[in-house]
């Protein structure tokens, strides 16, 4: 059983203050926000308060916040809702987007849209240079994530957005992994739409948001009762939305101290990893302070991850959402990493609960496991 959690990019533990804010809405305050009686009005005002908290955290206006069931739904809404509204045209996405951007884009492609992919360099940075050329074709949406979930590499979203705006193209960024780990400023990024998720910032699973410039026409993905100004129907998940808001409110204080502490832990970790001979992906460029994506030559990632779990460390082999498959990471392949090395990739993502001692014991265990696995491989050969 693992006891040390190094998988904060997959999901995070709920902050106890967030839980406290949610509890009343999981029990006594049970109204349906659409109801007009006092139970309903109470739920409605809780949602509106959360809307302000979310907006404040990313320098947006509350009226720009559309609550969804999570990041996946918000990304689907951005791609299908914006590009879909335009009619068949070009969609531009980067080569390292999360599947909840690339798959809805591919679904539109099957219905007649043109899909163009922005390549990344060997560090995992999306190349601005090709953008101008691509946008000569009529484009309904360009989407580039703010920070990659696997490597943590930051993208030059504001720069790309500036080019896109020159061409009158709507820009979306998936900021799910960035939120809580760095300052995220909707206005400064200069994008039209941005995706956020609650459970990556010590909020509950089941809530997310699309921040949307109201001048952008968008079509709902879920039709029904007309909630969220008709853009997202369905009874609101009040408790989760309240928790998302509370988690957002905690962010500003957290961003003052935590990234520095976590960055230090990561440096400590990566110094140790390099000593063990790890290749660290994206290490030469700007990354989220908590993420390390690395591999050891001739060691299978899946095997190592399982061995680490038995020793008490929860890490990921690739992103949680794709951990069902044993395919090498698509992000690494896009960066030009050899498939064999990519198959060995392991991700650690640090968070609120981690300490320098945990890093030390992790490095010690890792050294032992690598020696053991190398020995086994040698014997097998």
């Amino acid at each position: 059983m693992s006891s040390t959690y190094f998988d904060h990019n997959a999901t995070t533990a709920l902050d106890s203050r967030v839980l406290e804010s949610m509890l009343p809405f999981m029990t006594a305050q049970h109204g349906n926000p659409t109801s007009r009686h006092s139970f309903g009005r109470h739920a409605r005002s809780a949602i509106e308060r959360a809307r302000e908290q979310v907006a404040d955290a990313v320098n947006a206006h509350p009226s720009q916040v559309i609550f969804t069931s999570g990041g996946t739904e918000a990304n689907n809404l951005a791609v299908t809702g914006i590009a879909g509204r335009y009619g068949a045209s070009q969609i531009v996405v980067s080569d390292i987007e999360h599947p909840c951007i690339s798959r809805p884009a591919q679904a539109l492609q099957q219905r007649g849209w043109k899909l163009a992919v922005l390549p990344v360099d060997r560090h995992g940075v999306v190349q601005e240079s090709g953008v101008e050329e691509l946008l000569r074709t009529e484009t309904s949406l360009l989407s580039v994530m703010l920070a990659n979930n696997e490597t943590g590499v930051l993208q030059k979203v504001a720069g790309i957005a500036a080019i896109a705006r020159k061409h009158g193209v709507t820009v979306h960024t998936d900021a799910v992994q960035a939120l809580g780990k760095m300052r995220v400023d909707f206005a400064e990024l200069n994008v039209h739409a941005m995706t956020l998720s609650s459970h990556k910032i010590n909020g509950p699973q089941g809530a997310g948001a699309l921040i949307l410039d109201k001048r952008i026409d968008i079509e709902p993905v879920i039709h029904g009762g007309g909630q969220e100004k008709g853009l997202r129907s369905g009874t609101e998940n009040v408790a989760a939305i309240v928790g998302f808001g509370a988690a957002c409110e905690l962010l500003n204080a957290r961003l003052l101290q935590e990234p520095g502490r976590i960055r230090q832990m990561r440096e400590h970790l990566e110094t140790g990893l390099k000593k063990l001979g790890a290749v660290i992906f994206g290490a030469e460029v700007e990354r989220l302070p908590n993420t390390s994506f690395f591999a050891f030559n001739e060691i299978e990632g899946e095997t190592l991850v399982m061995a680490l779990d038995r020793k008490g460390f929860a890490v990921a082999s690739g992103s949680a959402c794709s951990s069902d498959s044993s395919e090498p990471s698509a992000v690494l392949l896009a960066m030009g990493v050899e498939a064999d090395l990519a198959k060995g990739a392991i991700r650690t993502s640090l968070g609120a609960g981690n300490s320098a001692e945990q890093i030390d014991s992790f490095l010690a265990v890792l050294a032992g496991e690598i020696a053991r696995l190398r020995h086994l491989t040698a014997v097998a050969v």
Partner: protein
Amino acid sequence: MTVKTPIYLDYSATTPVDPRVAEKMIPYITEFFGNPASRSHSFGWTAEKAVENAREEVAKLVNADPREIVWTSGATESNNLAIKGAAHFYSGKGKHIITVMTEHKAVIDPVRELEREGFEATFLQPEPNGLVDIEKFKAAIRPDTVLASVMFVNNEIGVIQDIEAIGNICREHGIIFHVDAAQATGKVAIDLEKLPVDLMSFSAHKTYGPKGIGALYVRRKPRVRLEAQMHGGGHERGLRSGTLATHQIVGMGEAFRIAREEMELENARIRRLRDRLLAGLQEIDEVYVNGDLKQRVPHNLNISFNFVEGESLIMAVKDIAVSSGSACTSASLEPSYVLRALGRSDELAHSSIRFSIGRFTTEEDVDYTVALMKSKIGKLRELSPLWEMHQEGIDLSKVEWAAH
């Protein structure tokens, strides 16, 4: 008599989370917080196991195979996935859909959306009692009908449609049959081994579970195919991507377990309360029950109070939390489209109240409500010139009103 006001009589809009459900949920947002898609560590496995246990509980309530249950963010999403997903997948076979005018918006709006995409839809008018006439349903079938969607229990009037009969007709004609059962779980017995239904939508928060979680039943034999509406990490076998909210799923599982175990006793208790409420309200003159009283869940009582103005009625009964029309439409002042589909006049539709009774309703709540309604209706009618005319024996339907 001591009752705490406002009294909650709006269980069809949403139900409180049962304390047993909340208790079961909390460890999964605190201690066992893993992402069930994380396959590489025990945090993930613990979450996944909890998700699968809950899937079994949901399947058990409706006698389905757990593999037939797909998690969604709620019944609205389930309805969207079922209707758009099936219509798109089978569009090669035909583009005609049959549904009913009294469906929830979460069915009507996706069907309307499909109409914009080039599908054709028939919206059947129910009989004045709210029930679908099977012969009329048959008559609506065309050679290109691919999908029918009929709700199990109506959210506003509580009537129970004859799902088995409609399903059999659909089977005969090779039509995919979807049923919105958001209002049915825990209120009527559902046996999907026997019922000829292909797709069925469920919600947790109408059955004492949390908001933000629902499920779609997708039949395996004969297999029903859908086009996914939400794409991404490939969760739920590709039918519905997105990180599963473990604690909410756990909550839905527990809520459905309780429903399965307690449904029979609870419904008997609720029926007694409903009968008491009905008997009390029927002592008031000029009240009309909307929807069939027999083929109906006991939880719902929808009543129109004649000669009372709707808005002032709602204002007058602030001590009880009830709904005028469905919660999802109560933001608008349009009279309920469900009641209008039954042929109710705008006036009677406007002056209707849906009382919905649930697990925590007491006899005292009911008695208080009856007394309150009697007194408030009496006062409002004293102020009403229409009531006065009615008392004088004037037939209001024959009055020619002057334009102004």
